[in-house]
């Protein structure tokens, strides 16, 4: 098995002695790995030839800007920042509306849940002769627990 991953580490001298010896032994026997090693060495040597120099900044201006940034008060965390009055008023109004309308919607949501539960029981209810004509029953509450009745209930 070729020590692909270790070849770069071999060149950057990042291997433990035992690992290094193992890679060296493999290199002696493997021409492919020697070729890869040579190409990788050329890449690293090329990079070592010198990184491009950035455009030199005006260090006086750089230090002046840094001085100004250091002297400026540290920005507060977003949750500690003062909120604009309009935004605060809007959020308060939204909260009030949510509370009021949330209560109003609740019975509607509960009714929907009850309908769903009853709908799920319909196939079971239809097994009972007494309720074959569901549409004739006005009070569904009366049959809510029919599924718990024994044979005597039929």
């Amino acid at each position: 098995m070729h020590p692909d991953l270790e070849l770069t580490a071999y060149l950057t001298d990042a291997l433990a002695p035992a690992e290094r010896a193992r890679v060296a032994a493999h290199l002696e026997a493997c021409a492919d790995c020697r070729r890869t090693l040579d190409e990788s060495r050329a890449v690293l040597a090329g990079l070592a030839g010198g990184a491009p120099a950035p455009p030199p900044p005006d260090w006086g201006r750089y230090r002046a800007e840094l001085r100004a940034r250091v002297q400026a008060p540290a920005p507060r965390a977003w949750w500690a920042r003062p909120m604009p009055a309009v935004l605060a008023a809007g959020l308060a109004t939204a909260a009030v509306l949510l509370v009021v309308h949330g209560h109003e919607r609740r019975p509607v949501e509960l009714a929907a849940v009850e309908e769903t539960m009853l709908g799920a029981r319909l196939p079971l209810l239809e097994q009972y002769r007494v309720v074959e004509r569901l549409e004739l029953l006005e009070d569904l509450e009366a049959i809510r627990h029919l599924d718990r009745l024994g044979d005597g209930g039929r």
Partner: protein
Amino acid sequence: MGSWTPGATLTQESSDEALCRRVAARDESAFDVLVGRYQGRAYRLAWSLLRNAEDARDVSQEAFLRVYRTAGGFRGDARFSTWFYRIVVNLCLDHRRRGRWWQQILVRDDGGGDAERALLERQPAPGADPGEALGGKQMTARLWAAVERLSPQQRAAIVLHAQEELPTSQIAEVLKCSEATVRVHLHRAVGALRKIVARE
């Protein structure tokens, strides 16, 4: 902030770690010395990762600002340089992540392309001088231009290794990952550079 004049001799001779402790105690002359020692490295590293002079200036200044404000959190068991490099690299990676979404919307030349082109244009045309040294310079320019196409983590690893000459163990501390992960980053970066250069 004080006068921002070079610190006293005692301060100049102090270790980075000692200076950082003094910065934590709001010693502005110590901060001044630290800035003097690291401004070139911080700016160069940021530029290598961002390839934009304005961004590099902004990010490197931000790194010093972080040092000034959070020096109290610096653990004395680590080297200051490692801690500082980590701040710079993290800020650069954050900067690139933040910029990505709008760069996809606005087709903007952020100077990176210019930097690459300028770098290549400064090199003599192929064949102008068949000398060995010239070929080496061209190869170096091409390789560093290709570094810009690596993934952010690979680029950070290769810049810290080849430019800042940090050992794998220190790169791992800067990138906050294992040495094995750094080895993978470097291996993949070198592999990608081999292919890019071979194609050109």
